[in-house]
């Protein structure tokens, strides 16, 4: 092992004071304002939501093994896919990387002691929990069956399920996103350490910054949309229901004005994680730093102008369709640029296959597929056939699960030694990455075929000719489910029994790796002075400590 340039005394974890052992007791967690502890509060809550949402998905896939439905009544099936969507989108994917890794890493990466507004950060978590409670109440009180898209007039006038509690839950959680985004933007602007210029920032910070802008500008729109939906349902004021003079398509415009940018809320932070992983495990400076950084910003901006591509078959004018189509093609280009830059970063690198890197490589593959299949849907003529079918389901799962969840798991595995001060069993972690990759493709690739053949989504029963692909997909889902349980087990195990991790087990660059693992409550004893660019792997000795 090479000599450590970082001056950390070799004290076993546990005897040194860090953010985890500085205080004990439930109160010390529930009233903490430490961004690292709040990150862990989020980690626990979103993991819980992920497995609840995943459980619904498993039930759905089991049900679809048989054309006539193997498990539940159609009404129940409709509730399963609705609650799966609502929980996964609003309570897992949107907060996933920003609220956990973002919360933990933003101050550490820019050399600050905490976020700009630590108490606001804690309130954001409480708001998230209150929102989640409303939505879980909706689940327990009989569920909701509108689809996560809440299309009117079905949701406003026809559904007999708990639409309002669900909408209230999503509405409340939105404020958590807005406040978190605000906190990040202020922190990144005002609290960078001396010498940490904008173009020395890790690309993860650029991605979180772009995401925060969408949080702040987009979330209020979904909030007001759901508020109007609740008003319509309670008071019948005639905004969305055509029977009383409303316009049901207006709802779709408002809904997708947020919900399309929300897709980028889910994937941009994952792209940020990717830039960190690919550089570390190839020991290379990122290829085309400014291209990767500005592609995040351009994605954030263009994402607000493409919502109409969800509505090509609603009868919107042909000319509106043309404009939304060309903008949707345009948003694909910065994503392609990122993929090419990550690949080029590997060139002449020193590539190792630690578990986080396997997740990263899985991300590149699955995200590439997800992005390219998006072209089928940006193309007007093919979208007419594929819209509303399983092709859509496959496409967005390749982005949100193959992309966002892979990146999230890669990030968790990468920073886990920093977060907990412990190492997890690398063999198990690589095995889990492989199981997830195989299970994922087996689950969702057949759905592309189903979509092209014409099987509509959200079908509780289906014509028998679609059965083969459905069975394949269900088999894949069971593998995928096991794949997600494995990390839950070994990561939990490692918190107690894992060997102590040094301050920098991967030999990574970045200010967070100059702190001990786990970091002390104040992060840095002295605020560091930054003198080098991000990912400066070539310049100095690489240390594993």
């Amino acid at each position, binding site marked *: 092992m090479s000599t450590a340039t970082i001056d950390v005394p070799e004290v076993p974890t546990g005897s040194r004071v860090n953010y985890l052992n500085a205080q004990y007791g439930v109160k010390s967690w529930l009233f903490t304002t430490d961004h690292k502890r709040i990150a862990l509060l989020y980690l626990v809550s979103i993991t819980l939501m992920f497995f609840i949402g995943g459980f619904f998905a498993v039930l759905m896939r089991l049900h679809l093994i048989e054309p006539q439905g193997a498990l539940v009544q159609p009404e129940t099936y*409709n509730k399963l896919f609705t609650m799966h969507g609502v929980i996964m989108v609003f309570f897992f994917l949107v907060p996933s990387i920003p609220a956990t890794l973002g919360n933990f890493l933003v101050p550490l990466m820019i050399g600050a002691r905490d976020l700009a507004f630590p108490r606001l950060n804690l309130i954001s978590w409480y708001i998230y929990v209150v929102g989640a409670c409303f939505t879980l109440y909706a689940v327990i009180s009989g569920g909701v069956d509108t689809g996560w898209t809440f299309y009117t007039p079905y949701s406003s006038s026809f559904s007999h399920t708990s639409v309002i509690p669900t909408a209230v839950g999503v509405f409340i959680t939105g404020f958590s996103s807005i406040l978190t985004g605000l906190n990040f933007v202020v922190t990144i602007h005002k609290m960078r350490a001396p010498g940490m210029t904008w173009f020395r920032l890790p690309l993860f910070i650029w991605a979180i910054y772009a995401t925060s802008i969408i949080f702040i500008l987009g979330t209020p729109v979904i909030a007001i949309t759901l508020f109007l939906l609740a008003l319509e349902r309670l008071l019948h004021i005639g905004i969305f229901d055509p029977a009383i003079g409303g316009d049901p398509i207006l709802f779709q415009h408002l809904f997708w004005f947020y919900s399309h940018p929300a897709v980028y809320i889910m994937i941009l932070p994952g792209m940020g994680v990717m830039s960190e992983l690919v550089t570390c495990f190839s*020991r290379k400076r990122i290829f085309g730093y400014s*291209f990767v950084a500005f592609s995040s910003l351009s994605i954030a901006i263009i994402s607000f102008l493409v919502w109409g591509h969800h509505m090509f078959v609603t009868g919107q004018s042909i000319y509106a369709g043309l404009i939304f189509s060309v903008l949707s093609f345009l948003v694909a*280009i910065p994503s392609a640029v990122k993929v090419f830059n990550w*690949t080029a970063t590997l060139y002449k690198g020193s590539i190792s296959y630690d578990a986080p890197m396997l997740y990263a490589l899985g991300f590149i593959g699955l995200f590439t597929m997800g992005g390219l299949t998006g*072209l089928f849907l940006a193309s007007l003529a093919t979208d007419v056939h594929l819209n509303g079918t399983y092709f859509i389901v496959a496409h967005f799962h390749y982005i949100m699960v193959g992309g966002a969840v892979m990146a999230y798991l890669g990030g968790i595995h990468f920073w886990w030694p920093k977060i907990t001060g412990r190492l997890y069993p690398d063999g198990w972690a690589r095995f889990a990455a492989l199981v997830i990759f195989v299970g994922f493709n087996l689950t969702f690739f057949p759905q592309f075929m189903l979509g092209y*053949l014409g099987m509509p989504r959200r079908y509780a029963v289906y014509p028998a000719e679609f059965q083969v692909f459905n069975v394949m997909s269900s088999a894949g889902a069971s593998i995928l489910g096991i794949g997600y349980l494995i990390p839950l087990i070994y990561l939990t195990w490692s918190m107690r029994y894992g060997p102590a991790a040094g301050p920098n087990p991967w030999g990574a660059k970045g200010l967070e790796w100059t702190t001990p693992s786990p970091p002390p409550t104040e992060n840095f004893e002295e605020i560091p002075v930054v003198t080098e660019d991000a990912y400066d792997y070539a310049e100095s000795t690489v240390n594993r400590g």
Partner: protein
Amino acid sequence: MMGAIQTGSDFLFAAAIQAPQLRPEAASSIAEGVDHLYFALTFITLFFTFIIFSTILVFMVKYRRRAENERPPDTGEHLGLELTWTIIPTLICVGLFLWASSLYFENSRPPSASTEIFVIGKQWMWHIQHPEGVREINELHVPVGVPVKLTMTSEDVIHDFYIPAFRVKKDVIPGRYSSLWFQATKIGTYHLFCAQYCGADHAEMLGWVYVMSPADYAAWLAGGVPSQTMQQSGELIFNKLGCASCHLSDGTGRGPSLLGIYSKEEELKNGDKRLVDEAFIRQAIVNPNSVVLPKYPAIMPTFQGQINEEQVLQLVAYVKSLASEERKTDGK
């Protein structure tokens, strides 16, 4: 020997039945064009996935870490490469956009001489009515080789009329008319699906499209339940609701004469110019005060809730017929 071949071909035949179908049937005039674009997109997807995957694989093997303290050289930046992989995807996207959009443009415009059929979506069934008066539920009979235009609306929530074999799909929206056209090219029976989630039995809201030879179609129409044409049903409703007491044909009534009004452009009281099409007539029935003509008072009551969408369509058919049969109803 022969037996072995026989068994072999039997086996192949059996495998062909059980192997899942990979391409939906292509039974309309636009299906091939859409599929060609689909295949091109599939090729582009596979091509780029292959390039990325193989590059990563080569790099992973070639540049694998050989020593723990290895320090790779800094390869720097390369503006030329960045521009190359920005511009090439942009050009491909522009090409795809032009192809897909021109195809969509063509596919969206019905030929003028289309046969018209009317569709009403309702939780959870499709009501279909032919102008000749024949009605069907969850079945749509159409002649092969003839352009067919569907005019569609919904009684309740948003549905979506989807025939995969024709590659056509359009939302069916309450409170407005949407339209869809196709020209079937192959005699056969094809799936009809609802592709917009519409509640409990969404997955059961399906039916069949029967594409028949023109002769068979004519025979089928003639053999249908004897009933009035849509226009005749519309005339009955028109008289029953007392529409004629205001809409006098000589134009002296409290409402405008409806003779020849269809497909005219009318200037409204508020100055807007509107083409009198199906949607306009529907609006004039359910929300009359939004389309008042000059010189007439806004006194017509709404008929929303008093007649259903099917009856509205019949009224529309009747008002449309007044355009061509001016003489027949004259002096009534």
